[in-house]
């Protein structure tokens, strides 16, 4: 682990100055390839009907699901389309799930029930005991009942269900399965430790002084300014830093210019301008020392819908001078030193969290992998074959001052947190 390795070298800094100070070279990136091309949008058109997206998904997923179904339930199981179903016949159907949710906020409902209606207040979860699951395939849909956890599943999941049609037209489910993880290429073994630092939720522009010091400490550790020689040497093994979204704070999103009168807002600049300047400086410090990938998040100035396009380089005049800075999409996929990374800035997980009963974000992450779908609720809202996957849910830096160090050798993760000291002097500072 990072700390243990750092502690291996003797401490030298509590002593008179010596002329020879060690300098460590940053580990060179052995292999890096960015596979986020599918996420780059060419031309943007909003004419796409959602139905097309769902249909494409189904077509692509069908073969995987069929093979999985045969694995689970034997090769003789009949795989049928909805239109071919015979009553009381046990078979397997592959389709997309749709969950009819009572509490789901619907724009149509808001618009149609005119003016006097108060819009539905935002809730943390929109699930309701009366929700129903419907399976849809290319042509038909059918209600699902039975051995299936309605609350856990979300709209958009493609799965295979085993069961039979009842007389009342509903499908009685005996079992269901997902596509599970795709076959994995074995990652090459690394001879030395290499770390990738994952940070999320820097929350610049939010006005929190504590997080600024934490951010500065983070940058200092990564760039090798802080710490003793041992730590600096370990820090030199951080081969990449990935900033996963929400670089700007929620408070920079204020849309004063729309609500306030023009004469009040004329000379004021958006809060995000200052925040972006700070971000530029931080990125400059980082890029001067380590390759950085910057992913946009919910509150960052880029498009709102997934896939979010990279932030524009003109916002970072200082940092773009360095080729080590890479502005990438959200979601982001890359292969770093043989390990395939797939990350998002969290909007998909929080969305799933809202629409299902799954509580743990890690559980949700795992589930997305099993379903082979990063974001099933969009556009609406590891494995069985020995694949090794490390799921990392990165905490929000602005509140926790914590980032994640992933060791590519062995896929282990260690949180790294930073703190200063405050007026209230309890050692709770070092607590969780």
């Amino acid at each position, binding site marked *: 682990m990072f700390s243990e390795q750092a502690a291996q070298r003797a401490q030298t*800094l509590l002593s008179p100055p010596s002329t020879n100070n060690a*300098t460590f070279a940053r580990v060179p990136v052995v292999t890096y390839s960015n596979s986020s091309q599918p996420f780059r949008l060419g031309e943007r058109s909003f004419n796409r009907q959602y139905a097309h997206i769902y249909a494409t998904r189904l077509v692509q997923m069908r073969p995987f699901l069929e093979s999985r179904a045969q694995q689970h339930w034997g090769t003789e199981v009949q795989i049928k389309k909805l239109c071919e179903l015979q009553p009381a016949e046990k078979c397997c159907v592959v389709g997309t799930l749709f969950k009819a949710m009572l509490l789901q906020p619907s724009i149509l409902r808001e618009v149609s029930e005119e003016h006097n209606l108060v819009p539905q207040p935002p809730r943390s979860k929109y699930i309701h005991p009366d929700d129903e699951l419907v399976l849809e395939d290319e042509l038909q849909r059918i209600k699902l009942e039975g051995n299936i956890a309605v609350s856990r599943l979300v709209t958009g999941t493609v799965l295979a269900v085993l069961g039979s049609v009842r007389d009342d037209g509903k499908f009685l489910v005996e079992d269901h399965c997902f596509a599970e993880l795709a076959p994995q290429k074995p990652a090459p073994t690394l001879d030395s430790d290499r770390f990738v630092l994952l940070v999320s939720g820097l929350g610049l522009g939010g006005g929190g002084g504590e997080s600024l010091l934490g951010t500065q400490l983070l940058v200092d550790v990564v760039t090798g300014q802080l710490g003793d020689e041992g730590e600096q040497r370990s820090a030199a093994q951080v081969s990449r830093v990935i900033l996963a979204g929400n670089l700007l704070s929620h408070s920079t999103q204020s849309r004063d210019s729309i609500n306030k009168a023009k004469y009040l807002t004329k000379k004021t600049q958006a809060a995000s301008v200052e925040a972006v300047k700070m971000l530029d400086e931080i990125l400059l410090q980082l890029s001067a020392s380590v390759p950085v990938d910057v992913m946009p998040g919910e509150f960052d100035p880029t498009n709102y819908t997934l896939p979010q396009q990279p932030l524009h*380089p003109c916002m970072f005049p200082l940092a773009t001078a360095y080729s080590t800075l890479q502005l990438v999409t959200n979601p982001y996929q890359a292969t770093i030193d043989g390990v395939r990374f797939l990350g998002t800035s969290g909007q998909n997980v929080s969305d799933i969290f809202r629409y299902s009963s799954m509580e743990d974000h890690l559980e949700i992450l795992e589930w997305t992998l099993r379903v082979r779908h990063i974001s099933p609720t969009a556009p609406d809202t590891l494995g069985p074959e020995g694949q090794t996957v490390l799921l990392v849910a990165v905490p929000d830096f602005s509140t926790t001052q914590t980032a994640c160090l992933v060791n590519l050798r062995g896929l282990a993760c260690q949180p*790294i947190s930073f703190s200063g000291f405050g007026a209230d002097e309890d050692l709770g500072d070092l607590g969780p």
Partner: protein
Amino acid sequence: MADQLYLENIDEFVTDQNKIVTYKWLSYTLGVHVNQAKQMLYDYVERKRKENSGAQLHVTYLVSGSLIQNGLSCHKVAVVREDKLEAVKSKLAVTASIHVYSIQKAMLKDSGPLFNTDYDILKSNLQNCSKFSAIKCAAAVPRAPVESSSEKFEQANLQVSSDTNHELSTNGHGPPTSKQVSQQPKGIMGMFASKAASKTQDTNKETKTEAKELTNASSAGSKAPGKVNVMSNFFGKAAMSKLKVSLDSEQAVKEEKTVEQQPVSVIEPKLAAPTVLKKSSKKVEPVKMQQKEKKRGKQLELSDDEMKETENMKKKKRKRIKLPEPDSSEDEVILDSLGAYEAESPSPPPPAHASPPEPAPKMEPAPPSVKSPSGENKRRRKRVLKSKTFIDGDGSMVTEKVYESESCTDSEEELKMKTPAIHRPPAMTVKKEPKEERKGPKKGAAALGKASRQASITGFFQKK
């Protein structure tokens, strides 16, 4: 001795200047490796405490190591006050590093000021923030920022002419990134460039060789790269373009055989101070004369003489322009003041002269005002409005107001300046600097002239 020096330095910073000395701040200030800075701080603390145990020193430390939390090993990095150091150390399962973070005289309530100190010193050293760090990254090479910035300015200047697009491709970097980078300065430059544009647009009207001028300007610009002070670069370039414009207009003028203009334009960008002033005033004269009394032989003679001089000067000037920025500072000053009026305060020449004479007012007020501080009284030929009385054909006496060339000194010239000249037809084939042309009509009101003159004098000193 050398190692004692840093102790004294730290002592001075902490005790006398009452600063918060963080290791980062010390590292940048003394230009040493960060680890060495940390060691220096430690050494200082130890010695100071040995000498004088009651020393007013508060120290903060950086502690890092692993902490077992919920069964998970979490790496912690914390800045702590000295009194909490031991407590924190004991909590850590494995201690990775401890070192002095900062020294200050007063006790710190929270770590805010530490951050501020670090932030401030970092801001002033942004470009080489990794210089004293313990990790060097081979892959992090800045993309030739100096060249790119000079290219940016070049492009901004060239923006005025249509054939600038090819310049973008000369950038070594990928086009999109360079576009982003250059678009930003273009935005800023756009403001100046638009002013330059209005200037040069006038020249466009007059000069056929505008493109040539601008490409010359760009070549002049590109010949002066590597200037650290980008802003002066900018001014230099703007001045350059003006210079070039005038120079090329001179050339065109020559071609057009309206040589009288040359002295004016040639003189204008002259780099030597007194001579500039002198010549610019001289320029005024010939312009006026030439405009009004082309027919008068005198002017031609004079201008011929002057032309010869200016030919030489021009040659000299040509050479000088290619020199890097420092030489042209003088020129910048003058031209800048001219530019300033043109670009930023088109008001002294009243709005009436809005579009075409815009470049000109700058020229006009400048030369006369510029020449006044020169303190030189040169004999000049000037056109003076005089009433001539003569007996015409019928035998009656006629009194006419006529412009006549006369040699006179400054004061008289000023007087003359006040009298508005008739509108020089802009269609004058003189391809010279529109400024020169406008000089006549430019001098609309006396107050106007005075105001702009006045302004340009102070402008001269301000720019210095």
